[in-house]
């Protein structure tokens, strides 16, 4: 296991807005003795266009992704949403192009979200992290219902020293991000994220943790606008914390 080479598939939002999430993920994986590789010409998996109905443009991104990652071994991403895109929607995008579809499916079979990779593939729950604080976990939609990852992040969090995990109400409710939705339907999106923030506050947690930067940027934006002191963190950041 120690010599396995892992290829990083970094969500565009992480790459461009929260690169420290990717840095943290690198620390966690390297501390486990893994060798990492990162194709630095990657840009985006195509999900923004796909979700807005622009499938042709999404296909451009998907083809490029396939070409870049085709020769990679195990692929790990700090985003359930991007993994859901590759694992499930590429097949839909290429339903009329069997060759591309097959290539996409081969890549999909070895692409993992970070926490499912740690818990299900590496069978690791204890990564030696330490985070003093009361944490609540937000279930991102595509992670939870797209690729059915629910317990893995919680198991990892429970093994973090000093961390007190509390559940919020409706942790599995959408935070109102939805990509372009947040921009096109700001009133609905705001109502949703404000509910989410209320539930976080009511849980008594000082930190909200998630596995998808889209949701986290949304929640962090609402927390900031409301002047609250809740910390919004990607799970990789928590797992990378050492005493």
């Amino acid at each position, binding site marked *: 296991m120690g010599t396995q080479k892992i290829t990083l598939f970094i969500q565009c939002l992480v790459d461009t807005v929260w*690169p420290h999430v990717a840095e943290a993920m690198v620390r966690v994986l390297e501390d486990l003795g893994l060798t990492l590789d*990162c194709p*630095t010409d990657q*840009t985006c998996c195509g999900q*923004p*266009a796909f979700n807005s109905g622009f499938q042709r443009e999404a296909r451009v991104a998907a083809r490029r992704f396939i070409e870049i990652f085709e020769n990679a071994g195990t692929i790990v991403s700090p985003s359930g949403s991007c993994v859901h895109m590759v694992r499930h929607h590429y097949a839909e995008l290429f339903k009329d192009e069997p060759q591309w579809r097959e290539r996409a499916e081969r890549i999909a079979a070895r692409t993992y979200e970070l926490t499912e990779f740690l818990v299900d593939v590496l069978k690791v729950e204890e990564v030696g992290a330490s985070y003093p604080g009361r944490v609540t976990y937000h279930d991102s939609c595509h992670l939870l219902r797209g690729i059915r990852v629910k317990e893995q992040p919680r198991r990892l969090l429970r093994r973090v020293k000093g961390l007190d995990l509390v559940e919020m109400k409706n942790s599995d409710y959408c935070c109102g991000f939805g990509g372009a939705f947040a921009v*096109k339907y700001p009133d609905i999106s705001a109502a949703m994220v404000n509910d989410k923030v209320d539930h976080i506050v009511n849980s008594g947690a000082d930190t909200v943790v998630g596995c998808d930067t889209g949701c986290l940027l949304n929640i*962090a934006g609402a927390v900031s606008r409301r002047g609250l002191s809740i910390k919004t963190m990607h799970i990789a950041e928590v797992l990378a914390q050492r005493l």
Partner: protein
Amino acid sequence: MSDISTEKYVEEAKRGIANTVLQKALVGLQDRFGRGTAEAYRRLPEGPDLRLKAHEIREKAIAHLDVLLEILAAKIRASGGYVYFAETAQAAVDYCLAVARRNNVRLVVKGKSMVSEEIGLNPALEAAGIEVVETDLGEYIIQLAGETPSHIIAPAIHKNRQDIADLFVQKLGIRRTTDPPALTQAARKALREKFLAADMGTSGVNMACAETGHITTVSNEGNIRMATTMPRVHVALMGMERIVARLDEYEIILRLLCRGAAAQTMGTYASYIGGPRRPGESDGPDEFHLVVIDNGRRRILADPQFREMLCCIRCAACLNVCPVYGKIGGHSYGFAYSGPVGAVVTPLLTGINRAKDLCCGETLCGACKDACSMNIDLPRMLLALREKLAYGDADWQVEPASRAEGLAYRGWSWLIRNRRIYELGLKLAAAGQQLLPQKKGMLRRLPPPVQGWTQSRDLHPLAEETFMERWRRTRKG
């Protein structure tokens, strides 16, 4: 067809969000039924996967709709019933009016039926001088208030007991009370008089069964049993897709319907109606009419991308888990069907362009699919609708919804093709964001067309160095 106001989605959504009574009711509804339905599926002896079996049953029935409907019609006619096939809403309404006229109908009692909302039956009957009384308590309340249903199963969810008390004082002349049992009793009394005086009863159809030649209706209140038993004439309105082949298949659908609709093991009443009263029987209608309605369903049937939508049994389980419905309420959807089911079926029935906000105004969170008693992939169909809006579609007469957005995505697809150009674009954007108002390292206001984001939240700015740049800098010495 009834009034369509799908264009007002955004406006109505705002109104719904600002309505504190509605907000409280929606929380209560979703807390109770959303969680309860998931639990009810788990408690099935076959587990939640029974929904997959149900999906197969429904798909098979839809694929044989021509055959099943003909068998149903023949059996109902053999039992003395009438069957009419209505291509349009207007044809269905006209048929109901003709039946009413022929029977000198003055008063109609209605069992809850979403398809009757869809075809606009009430206003047509009223225009013909016929009194129409909704008999489901929730529907009765909103009829008295002159409103439309905001939930498929709980139509008056947007009204609280104070609203209802005021309404009953004004319309029924009762002494004011806010006690739900007392209010229910007042409606029971008023409606009992209507049931006993009505000439015609109408109902929807939850599901028909071809093998036996019956339609079924399910209710907790007993109003549908009243409406289909006491008046001289019963007219049942059925969306043409509401049929299964066999009784053992129906058994699965009924169990899932009760769980999806109200997290119940079984509704209080389920009736299997095969025709009018038979000789020697003392009650039941003299005439039974079944109206099978197309009204645009045929187009859905013909499109393999959307045919799956015809598996829907309108249980409303998706409304009870949808985070968007949970904030905006049912009126925002501007047609008979609200929530995720409305977001897909309304554009298909009433026009995709005019209902574009229904297609795009969701987050694709997937909760509806998990809650669906028939395991319908609603998010997939929302994406398919968005694709039609992105590029236009001749078969569905769809125009591209936004040229600007089309251009933006084309530009985006050009940008992401080349990492260097992509980074250049990022640099420009990063430079641009310096000009925007900031506070504690967060952007406070974004320019058009993305100003919506910062309407009520901040945005973390772009990083000075992307992760890829840093990796190149530090790792590829």
